[in-house]
């Protein structure tokens, strides 16, 4: 599914809708807007443990869920929170948990159990810089964890990445829908900036329809008992369960891919970026176009399933791709897998809670677009935050120029 939505509020709507939107808009903090969107989406139970830069989400839940007579628990730890969530979700309740990076690591085991037992839940990660306890600055260095990692076993989790607070609210409703449709945990990832910032948002919420589940543990009076578990000691049975899971993941990959294309129609180059990095890229693209560089934005909204087919198709007509992330380069691996050497893929990123500025990204773009003219990549704080590859990549991938030290 292609989404026509632009970043932020407004584009793709009629003038009357825009005017109505303007009148109903209020200023909301990202963490609070996500919490309220979950409440309006029908979240029955929330479990959490405080951590910066996600704390306001939990605080909002602490007040609002009690007002509404729903379940709010500040658990004794992240492990406690997510395992309570597992139990609540097994009853068919609409359940959400949120944390920030180090807390998500603690929740990894339960994610595997939920995937294995087919338990729906929405997990929000307001990412901060790692590794370890790291810092509290914004980061996208949990891409690997979200899309490939957390717990053990052959499983996948749909991952949604908003680039604005308004989009985060909309995607939260989608997260509950996907979680229940496919009986899977779903992750929504945003960096600390989106959690801490305030933007105008439309207070028009979406509440996903409720369905009766034939698997939920609701008390077995008058019917056969149901069992929710991830253990199967018979290899034949366990393989069958795994095959069913893989079938489910193929279905998700077929139906749930989302991305945004911006200014790509006449583009000779593209930036691939998600979340906050995509917004920085947007400003850099506007500046680049003023300087005659024809560049557009390809923004994955689902990080898994990754929009690989769409990116592969696009790469056939591009002179090069620049991937921008708040990390050392994680999504860029999926970009390169999708592009399969059809065009050079460069990378620019910052770590530790720092965010690339539009001018930094513009510098990296100039280096990519002027590759043959040997424009040097920009140096940032003494290291080369931009990595450029020779155009004949990947056949001579060792021949890269300006590699990081």
């Amino acid at each position, binding site marked *: 599914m292609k989404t026509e939505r632009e970043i932020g509020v407004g584009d793709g709507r009629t003038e009357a809708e825009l005017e109505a939107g303007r009148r109903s808009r209020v200023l909301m903090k990202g963490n609070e807007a996500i919490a309220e969107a979950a409440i309006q989406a029908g979240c029955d139970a929330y479990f959490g443990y405080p951590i910066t830069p996600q704390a306001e989400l939990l605080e909002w839940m602490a007040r609002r869920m009690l007002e509404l007579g729903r379940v709010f628990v500040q658990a004794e730890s992240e492990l406690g929170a997510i395992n309570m969530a597992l139990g609540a979700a097994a009853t068919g309740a609409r359940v959400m948990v949120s944390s920030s990076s180090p807390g998500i690591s603690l929740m990894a085991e339960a994610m595997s159990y939920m995937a294995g037992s087919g338990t729906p839940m929405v997990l929000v990660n307001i990412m901060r810089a790692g590794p370890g306890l790291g810092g*509290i600055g914004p980061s996208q260095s949990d891409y690997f964890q979200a899309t490939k990692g957390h717990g053990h076993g052959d499983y996948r989790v749909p991952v949604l990445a908003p680039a604005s607070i308004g989009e985060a609210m909309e995607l939260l409703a989608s997260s509950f829908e996907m979680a229940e449709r496919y009986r899977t945990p779903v992750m929504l990832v945003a960096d600390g900036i989106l959690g801490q910032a305030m933007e105008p948002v439309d207070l028009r919420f979406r509440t996903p329809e409720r369905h009766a589940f034939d698997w939920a543990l609701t008390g077995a009076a008058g019917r056969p008992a149901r069992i929710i578990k991830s253990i199967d000691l018979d290899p034949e049975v366990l393989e069958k369960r795994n095959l069913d899971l893989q079938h489910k993941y193929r279905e998700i990959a077929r139906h749930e891919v989302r991305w945004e294309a911006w200014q790509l129609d006449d583009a000779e180059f593209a930036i691939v970026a998600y979340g906050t990095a995509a917004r920085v890229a947007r400003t850099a693209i506007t500046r680049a176009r003023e300087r005659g560089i024809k560049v557009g934005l390809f923004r994955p909204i689902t990080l898994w399933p990754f929009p690989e087919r769409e990116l592969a198709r696009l790469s056939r007509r591009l002179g090069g791709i620049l991937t921008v992330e708040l990390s050392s380069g994680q999504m860029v691996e999926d970009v390169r897998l999708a592009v399969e050497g059809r065009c050079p893929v460069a990378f620019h990123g910052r770590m530790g809670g720092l965010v690339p500025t539009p001018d930094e990204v513009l510098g990296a773009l100039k280096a990519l677009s002027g590759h043959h003219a040997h424009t040097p990549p920009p140096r940032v704080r003494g290291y080369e935050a931009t990595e450029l590859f020779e155009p004949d990549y990947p056949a001579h991938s060792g021949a890269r120029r300006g590699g990081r030290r």
Partner: protein
Amino acid sequence: MEHSVVFSGFGGQGLLFTGQALARAAIKDGLEVFWIPSYGPEMRGGTASCTVIVGDSPIGSPVVDRFDAAVVMNLPSLRKFAPRVAGDGLLVMNASLLGDETSGRSDVRELHLACTALAAQGGDDKLVSVVALGALVARLGWVTPESVRAALREMAGHKRLANEDRWRVVEADLGAFAAGLDAGAIDAAT
């Protein structure tokens, strides 16, 4: 059109509040806006700042290379943000604390305001950042004064205060804003 301003000083000067008042005013004027506080270790004591970006289309980058304007309420803020103001940008300086300090830049417009005295005229000498906002609005006109007043009426005073006390706070905020508005306009005319 996209404009950026940073409000910077120390905790308690009302910088985050004032930035939010500007953001709310922008919404009332039908504009797009992005407000981001510094939430790093400095929020645990010391300097406080927030960035507000106002535009007529969805806001792109939340990080700003060069600010169109900076409101600096103490010396560390002047040192930190004066170099990051764009050429021909506006620097609103709190002369009550900064005295005769200057940015040392000849390519920016400096506006020196005795914020404490001006705030006192409005009824509460603590509302220094609201004075600075008034001057900023008078000088740059990104939002209408009426929208700022409406925002201040919504925001000022703790919700749990008795109505009478709350209105006293609102009046002081409106007074500080008016004093800043006048100071900015007079200074612009000279």
